[in-house]
């Protein structure tokens, strides 16, 4: 385990109704769980949402987190995903300074290597959309930091187990 703990991805199926997100985030705060990212969206069943939570932690704390989540009436199912047996992705939008043509073409090259898309070009900026694991996004971010990132938006990780589950 590294100094700040290992990465865990927790996937929860929750009722899709008002107040559920509040109850869950309030639980994290009240019990001092440290959450890195959280994503929520509807599932194949319209009355259920899938919530993906990432946290840097240790096994004992994650076990408590899962059990406390399970205790919530609105939480239907919770599991810790095995990172080797699941697919997970994050989306990032990165806006950076790009005035001169050399910079612009460099950014375009990097974006294409990372299978990103240029989704906006302004007079002085370019915005890249990039999807992948958090590591990949970090790597791209590090690469383009030299140009000056002016704005950054990351969605947090969304994940599903692989194959028939």
């Amino acid at each position, binding site marked *: 385990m590294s100094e700040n703990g290992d990465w865990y991805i927790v996937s929860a199926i929750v009722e899709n109704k008002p107040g559920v997100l*509040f109850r869950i985030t309030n639980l994290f705060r009240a019990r001092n769980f440290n959450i890195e990212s959280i994503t929520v969206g509807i599932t194949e069943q319209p009355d259920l949402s899938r919530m993906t939570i990432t946290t840097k932690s240790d096994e004992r704390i994650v076990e408590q987190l899962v059990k406390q989540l399970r205790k919530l009436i609105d939480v239907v199912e919770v599991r810790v995903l095995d990172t080797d047996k699941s697919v997970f992705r994050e989306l990032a939008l990165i806006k950076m300074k790009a005035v001169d043509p050399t910079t612009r073409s460099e950014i375009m090259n990097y974006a294409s290597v990372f299978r990103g898309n240029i989704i906006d070009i302004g007079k002085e900026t370019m915005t890249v959309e990039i999807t992948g694991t958090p590591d990949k996004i970090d790597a791209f971010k590090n690469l383009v930091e030299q140009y000056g990132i002016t704005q950054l938006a990351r969605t947090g990780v969304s994940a599903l187990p692989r194959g028939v589950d």
Partner: protein
Amino acid sequence: MVEMTGAKSLIHALEKEGVDVVFGLPGGANLPIYDALVGANLRHILVRHEQSAAHMADGYARIKRKSGVCFATSGPGATNIVTGLATAHADSIPMVAVTGQVPLAMIGKDAFQETDIIGISNPCTKYAFQPRVAGEIPEVVKKAFYISESGRPGPVLIDIPKDVQQATADMHFPDLIKVRGYNPATDADMSEVGRAVELLLKAERPIIMAGGGVILSGAFAELQSLAELMMIPVVTTFKGKGAFPENHPLAMGPIGMHGHPEANKIIIEADCILAVGARFSDRSVGRFDEFGKGMNIIHMDIDPAEIGKNKSVDVAIVGDVKSSLRTLVKMLSKKIVKREADNPWLKRRKEIIQYYQESLKDYPRDVTAKKSLKKLREILPANGIVTTEVGQCQMWASLHFDVISPGTFFSSTGLGTMGFGFPASIGAKAARPQVPVVDIAGDGSFNMTENSLAVSVLEKLPVIVFLMNNYMLGMVAQWQRTFYNRRYSGVHQHQCPDYVKIAEAYGAQGIRTQSMEELEKAIKTAIKSDVATVIDIPIDPDEDVYPFVAPGTGLKDMITGA
């Protein structure tokens, strides 16, 4: 299907749940509910403060082992019950609280007496509902009782906007309900029970640590048959006090910060701890890292999240202790007939008890907390019910008042809410009017909810306030004596008020006692009385509670004061 208003459907649904009494106080946002109460088949007990309504519902629930019900209006009415919800939540008590809310269209507009009670109460409720249409109410009530009473019990809030109370709908009252995502019933895992049997059979110095879960589950007979079959000494947590008869030859009393010295001593000498419905609270175990070190720990609890929360354990049996204990006893009886009573561990138990009996000195006064409580025990019938306030009075009750009939002792233990005991005693009296009910009180605590005397008198629910009066926030004063070099700060009550006059002002009976003889007479008078009696017992403000395990230290570091 029957057409009626939301308010009427609420009352009808409560009646269908078998509710016979509700505690509450009206206001603008629950007027329709109060109107629907007229002619209803349930008793409404009007309180003088909503906090007390919640504590009364709590006291009622602890006796009946089903949800107590309280009503409050929106805004300040709702916020006044929050302490009661938090108290019940900390002690896993089933309760259904119904608050009025401003009309739907006004929510979020900072309307008069609007408060986000769902948000405020979130950390101290098991769940909260806000029905948006009247037709939802019967199902919401059904779910509220189900959630509140099943699994690990807890308070549930129903917040009903006024227009939803007023609207009419075709009502369907379901008999059965399922809540997706809530599956509280689990049967004990047999392989874990098997491992528990192995550990218990090979243990040389086993100990049972019985907690609040035993009382919540009513598993008294099961616990006793296990203890007697294996001849295992039984300690309890403070919340578990009275889970096991304290005059039983295997009983050792509560452990912990103010545990019985013999209980604290024996548990650290054990080699195997069977924790039954206890959550290893810091007040029970002292230091998490020290407690149970090198011992095998078996944990029986209904809440999977309690397993490993504070303490890693060797065996975990998840489920209702009543049925888990039965299974355990059944499996054990196949292996042994009955353990013999004269083994080295039980001899050691006797030695420990004798040691403390001889070495602990009594506080040198004619009337002391200890003597008073022993006197109360002598006179109060075994089936009498005791609630407590918070502070030294509470810890003295734990140390010196033996519970004989299991499940007759109730205290706010998790939250430690001053002012709980008196309204809770009234709720208990409403639940079991035929037995005497005593609130073992401190002056500071009684101050907080003493206006419930009006309720006790008017509703003919006579209880006894056994007031150990040091005119002091005594427990705080003790900490200031111990940890702040006797620098007293904000603890003196300056002989105010006169509790006999307070009692009389409400039409209750007040008796001040100066000697043990007077006290004896007063207790007898109070038990026979048909109005509430406050017995004002002067206690020396310097009398401390011993033993004491200072916070952050382990049970072995217990200070006995001797």
